């Protein structure tokens, strides 16, 4: 597993502060909506990203505006890292008409295609073929765009992953797969879901496809950035697909309401030591990149942002029931 030191990083102080800010914004958004969900303000499912912030932040920092990405059921972090607005995200979670999907999608389906965000996805591995298609499109249009797909360790067992990477290998597509290994698929550990041969290094799944393989500390945002940058660069310059495993941990339940009966004793505490929102601020403060005061200020600003986002969501209207019949087709609704 690679740490940041294995990569040739080009991060300025501003960049590093930006990485921290992104992670902090994700964490704040997630903790806040977690509370609102507990208060029954937010309907439906909620899969929190808490613990995995370094992955979204590190990867998205390596992307350009022109790139495309697909996400998962655990997608808020990717959206925020991609630059989506937290108020419209919150509004979507609340099912409001001001949300990114006008309330039609909710937590599992936030998308902003104009921003290159081809959607969260409620289907495990559902985003991978779509990203693969964005990579085909990028290649055919002779652009140097790259398509990045985020997915969990569990998604590696779905045929959709294999067919997409096989196509990407065959066509030499600019597709970057980011495996977020958070140790579990739902409430089942990795060892029940993968052959022993794969457990130590999930990127082995990319071997037949000729994907460039990399395995990094997913709790270290700079390591993730380093790996992602290499993979993206490779895609951009015609080097074909890559598969990057980010080894991390999910601190909350699979979804809100999960009793978390399955965690091993001490496991949580051990991982908690590596929480990027403990370690990275500390590191940047230690290294003098940011002062404690500045960080506190950043945090306060973010708290305000998220509070306002929630306020925006709360105050927005629910869509008019008639909207249910709009938006299915280019010409509108669904009646037939």
């Amino acid at each position: 597993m690679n740490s940041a030191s294995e990569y040739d990083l080009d991060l300025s102080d501003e960049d590093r502060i930006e990485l921290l800010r992104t992670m902090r914004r994700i964490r704040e958004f997630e903790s806040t909506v977690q509370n609102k969900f507990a208060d029954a303000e937010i309907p439906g499912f909620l899969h929190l990203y808490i613990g995995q912030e370094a992955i979204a932040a590190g990867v998205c920092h390596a992307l350009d505006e022109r790139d495309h990405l697909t996400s998962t059921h655990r997608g808020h972090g990717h959206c925020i890292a991609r630059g989506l607005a937290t108020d419209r995200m919150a509004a979507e979670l609340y099912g409001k008409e001001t949300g990114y999907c006008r309330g039609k999608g909710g937590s599992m389906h936030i998308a902003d295609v104009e921003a290159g965000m081809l959607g969260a996805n409620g289907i495990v591995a559902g985003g991978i073929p779509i990203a693969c298609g964005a990579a085909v499109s990028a290649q055919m249009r002779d652009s140097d765009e790259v398509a990045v797909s985020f997915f969990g360790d569990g998604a590696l067992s779905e045929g959709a992953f294999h067919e997409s990477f096989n196509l990407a290998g065959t066509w030499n597509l600019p597709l970057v797969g980011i495996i977020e290994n958070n140790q579990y698929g739902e409430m089942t550990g990795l060892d029940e879901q993968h052959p022993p041969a794969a457990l130590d290094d999930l990127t082995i799944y990319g071997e037949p496809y000729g994907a460039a393989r990399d395995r990094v500390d997913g709790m270290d945002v700079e390591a993730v950035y380093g790996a992602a940058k290499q993979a993206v660069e490779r895609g951009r310059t015609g080097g074909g697909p890559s598969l990057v495993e980010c080894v991390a941990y999910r601190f909350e339940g699979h979804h809100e309401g999960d009793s978390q009966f399955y965690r091993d004793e001490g496991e949580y505490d051990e991982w908690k030591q590596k929480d990027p929102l403990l370690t990275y601020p500390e590191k940047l403060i230690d290294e003098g990149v940011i002062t404690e005061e500045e960080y506190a200020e950043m945090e306060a600003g973010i708290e305000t942002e998220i509070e306002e986002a929630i306020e925006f969501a709360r105050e927005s209207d629910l869509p008019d029931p008639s909207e249910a019949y709009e938006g299915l087709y280019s010409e509108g609704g669904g009646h037939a």
Partner: protein
Amino acid sequence: MSATTATETEEAAVRDVINATLAQEMERDDSVYIQGIDVAGRGGTSNILKGLDDRFGRDRVRNTPISEEAMVGSGLGAAATGMRPVVEVMYCGFLAEAGDELLNQVAKMRYMFGGKLDLPLVIRTKNVMGANAAAQHSQSLHHWMAAIPGLKVVCISTPADTKGLLTAAVRSDDPVLLFEHGGVYNKSGPVPTGDHVCEIGEAAVEREGGDVTVVATQQQLWNAFEAADTLAEEGVSVEVVSPRTISPLDTETIVESARKTGRCVVVDESPLSYGTQSHIAAEISEQAFFSLDFPVQRVGVKNVPTPFSPSLEDEVVPDTDDILETVRTLV
């Protein structure tokens, strides 16, 4: 053979009946086993299977990787070679991941091979509507599976049915897709305590009535009961029919009721185009044509995926008021 008559009953919720019935069948027959995502530990996506792993061991309650093709396809292979697998597909929308296995393998294997091969395979899944789970998780897809000849498709609605139909499904030598429903798991009612088997392919007249027939499934059956109560107060006598098996459909029972009342409403959570309602309405319209006073009315989803927002989902999913309103147009 008709439904076994069982006199003693006890009150139970659908979710507990599923658990108890699977336990009963696993006790009865060693070749019955369960596989699916998180079926051990968590007890399946709705915790329905809680405790079965401890009771029957991890060999018979098997967590699979997230691989619906392999889950369903290996279930088929095991069914063809001496086992009686019960596969859980967490949400019905995930059935599509095993589309080939369902359409081309499970449904066609016996027929293509000349009819000789028993395939005792049960696939349990659930329809979900009204839980703000959005389009991929909020779906009703029994009609979609019923459109494939070779799959027996059962929808469970009441606790008693649950026992009778699940028992029949596990003992059947044919592939049975059992659609549970998220909105029905916590419904309680009397359940026969003895051996109770409902014939697959038999509908049930759940309430007798003379003025209007309401054919309804799952959550909508419970709405239909509610509507029938309200209408009874208004002096309208509603006969409520539960198809129970969607394929093969017991048209006889449904048509008989339609002939009697001459007025029918079919309520289901599939889309109005190409859904269950259309087929049931077509059968009634054809076979009870000369007894009908009014056209058969279909209540369902107006051909959109299920939207997330409560205000939208409430609009889209039929409820008791929709049934009431529709029945009232006929009387």
